[in-house]
């Protein structure tokens, strides 16, 4: 007899439908799985047969063929186990009728159902194809509940699933969950604990308000890392669509916490400088999102940027430009979004003491040049704001002045972001950093006075031509922050102060 169960598998962060067909016919007692499965898929036959037997059902004593269609796509992983087992139960007549559920899950030998990665993207893809009912592992229930307009049934064991399909047992569908960003979050890293650093803090607020990439330069212990850890706390909360996308990415990568279901906090990723290129960009044999994608909608923090390998840094150029990364491998090409804010830090020189009043810098001129040259011009061109962080003096540390809490700053940032979203509604971009040359012409017109001051800055301070559009974008953000329609002289002056 023949049965057909629908299941879904991942290609990048999108799901596609896989028909699990099972045929049981006379012949040699043997089970075969066809349809370009990897080792995990091939091994499923042992997990499935053992799980069926251990759940108290019988495994057919004849030839069993399991086919995963479409057969031309390579299938990976264990998420077809449950669908195969249920298919065998149908084909062998142990469950009667037709299966109207999409079934996803991994089997343990005892018949228990284990969770799988990427439930949310799978379900969203299935919903888009009109699927209504799902059977998923219990541990994935929370995550699955965030997809609206469908019925999700979660099961713990194969026997429970079979009883449910036979109509012998009732399972209530999962309650659909409402997305609610955590408004009253308690921040571990809050700007109110950062003393002094007026300039750096302001520069960070400007950067976050306009979505600009930022690099902090300062000697060791000046507080670069602390400042950057505070950044997610002042970013606006994730919108539902963003949250779904972030959750999908983390779900696919397997970094999702099963207990939270959906990600509500903007990600903060800080890969160590020994990171390999593939770990940053994504890819690998079983294609996984890399750090740039895991930082999607959040912050990618590269501490001690010149310590990363040159090659690794250069690969960031295209993702920074396109906000997505296309990973092409011989057998598949996938695309992951990666719209992140780059926050980098570096020392002013290899020993870290250049410009410090207390310590002598021991680096030679050539060493400093070599250190700085590790960051290529095209890469630096993508970083709009450069700010120096100077070490805080002891008096400042002990002074009992409360700094402004992150929550206050976050409120302002949110308003400025809203202004930008409104302005760019018809342009298909979200913030000032996304502006292209056309947008610059349209939205960054300068009056005579600010044009004059910009000209002065270029002539007297030796700004490069590349700096021009960077200064304009940042000036636009500063104007937005002070609620002005047009860019004024003061905005340009401040933008120039965040120059290289």
């Amino acid at each position, binding site marked *: 007899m023949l049965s057909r169960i629908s299941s879904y598998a991942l290609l990048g962060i999108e799901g596609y439908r896989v028909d699990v067909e099972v045929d049981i016919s006379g012949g040699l007692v043997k089970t075969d799985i066809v349809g370009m499965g990897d080792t995990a898929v091939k091994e499923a036959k042992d997990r499935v047969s053992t799980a069926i037997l251990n759940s108290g059902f019988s495994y057919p004593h004849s030839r069993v063929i399991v086919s995963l269609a479409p057969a031309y796509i390579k299938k990976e992983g264990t998420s077809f186990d449950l669908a195969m087992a249920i298919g065998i139960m149908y084909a062998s007549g142990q469950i009667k009728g037709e299966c109207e559920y999409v079934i996803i899950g991994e089997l343990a030998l005892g018949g228990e159902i284990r969770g799988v990665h990427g439930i949310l993207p799978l379900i969203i893809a299935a919903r888009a194809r009109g699927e209504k009912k799902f059977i998923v592992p219990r541990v994935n229930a929370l995550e699955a509940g965030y997809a609206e307009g469908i019925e999700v049934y979660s099961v713990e064991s194969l026997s429970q699933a079979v009883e449910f399909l036979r109509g012998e047992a009732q399972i209530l569908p999962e309650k659909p969950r409402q997305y609610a960003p955590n408004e009253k979050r308690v921040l571990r890293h809050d700007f109110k604990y950062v003393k002094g650093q007026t300039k750096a803090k302001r520069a960070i607020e400007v950067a976050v308000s306009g979505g600009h990439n930022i690099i902090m330069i300062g000697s060791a212990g000046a507080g670069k890392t602390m400042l950057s850890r505070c950044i997610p706390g002042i970013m606006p909360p994730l919108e539902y669509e963003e949250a779904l996308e972030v959750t999908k990415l983390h779900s696919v990568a397997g970094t999702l916490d099963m207990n939270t279901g959906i990600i509500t906090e903007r990600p903060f990723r800080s890969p160590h400088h020994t990171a390999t290129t593939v770990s940053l960009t994504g890819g690998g044999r079983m294609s996984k999102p890399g750090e740039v994608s895991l930082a999607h909608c959040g912050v990618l923090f590269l501490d001690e940027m010149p310590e990363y390998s040159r090659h690794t840094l250069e690969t960031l150029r295209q993702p920074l430009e396109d906000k997505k990364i296309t990973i092409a491998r011989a057998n598949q090409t996938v695309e992951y979004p990666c719209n992140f804010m780059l926050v980098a830090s570096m020392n002013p020189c290899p020993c870290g003491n250049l410009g410090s009043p207390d310590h002598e810098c021991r680096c030679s001129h050539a060493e400093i040049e070599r250190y700085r040259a590790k960051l290529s011009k095209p890469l630096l061109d993508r970083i709009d704001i450069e700010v120096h962080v100077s070490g805080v003096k002891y008096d400042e540390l002990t002074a009992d002045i409360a700094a402004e809490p992150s929550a206050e700053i976050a409120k302002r940032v949110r308003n400025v972001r809203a202004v930008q979203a409104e302005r760019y509604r018809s342009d298909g971009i979200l913030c000032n950093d996304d502006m292209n040359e056309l947008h610059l012409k349209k939205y960054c017109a300068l009056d005579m006075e600010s044009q004059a001051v910009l000209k002065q800055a270029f002539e007297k301070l030796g700004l490069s031509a590349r700096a021009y559009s960077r200064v304009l974008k940042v000036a636009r953000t500063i104007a937005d922050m002070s609620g002005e329609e047009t860019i004024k002289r*003061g905005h340009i002056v401040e933008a120039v102060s965040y120059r290289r």
Partner: protein
Amino acid sequence: MLGRNELYLLVSRVTGITAEETSKVLSEFETAEDALSDMERSKTFLSIFAEQRKSIVSKVVNRDNFCRFTENLSSNGVYYRTINSDDYPKCLFAAENPPTVIYYKGDEKLFSAPAVGVVGSRRCSSYGLDMTKRFCRDFAASGLTVVSGLALGIDTAAHSETLKCGGKTVAVVAGGLNHVYPKENEGLYGAIAENGLLVSLYSPETPIRRFMFPMRNEFISAISDGVLIVEAGANSGALITADYAKKQGKKLYVIPGNLNSPFSVGSNSLIKKCPSSFVLAASDIISDIMEIELGECGNAPEAIDEDSLSEDEKLVMQALRLGLTEFDEMMQATKMDYFALTETLFGLEIMGIIKKVAGNNYVV
């Protein structure tokens, strides 16, 4: 013409030859023509001194090679003076071993002009750079030639500030004149060749070696009438120059530095050893060397027209002079808000009065 001078030039090209050997060769032959027309004899004669120099000798004592060498000199604008000739710069005799041949590019009159050596560490503080510029401005104005070593840091500041102010400057470079070191100073090298004097102890193609740096310090002192140490760390090469100055009986001047600063350890201890080297202003040095009387006022910081500054700008300048150079410190001291201070600093920077340096620090 291959005369007596050319013989000196020819002999100087045998690397590693000692003074004693040189004089023997010079008494053996009358002119370069002599030596080159009887190449076999001169080769054997020269090789007696050291067997291992045979290959060098046969390369150097060769009419074609020698002619090519002299042609290259003139086509590159490099001149030379040999120790026997009357136009050999007299000042070089102050050195213990004056070179047989000296190569130069530019204005040779500067050899005999009143000059002061301005030296300091390559790694220096913004104070050091500031002082270098301040002193060199006055030297340039009073027509005193500034001699230095074309290294980074203080040397570079001394040369470039002097040229900027229309003064004359001499650079004693470490290697041959065809090798610009450090690379960063290529532009400065060209400017000095045009408006000043470049001096080298080695033939132009000689690559730079470590030992040449302390060697040229002796000649910075020799060319100068006095040596000013701007800033020197504990083991700075500038201290070697100071030693030579004392040995040669030149006047030594040292600018006092901050006791906390590692960049001034060497220069401050020089003052302790030799209190008379202490200087307060360029006028001290100018009147000393040029033997003219100058008032105390010779050395004001570059005249900033304080009256033309706005109230805010005056406040910022006050804070900077008090040593509050960091953005936050200035904000506290001037009680200005972030934006006003940013504007003011920008204005001052545009006017060229202050400069942003590493950290959020500004210097006058």
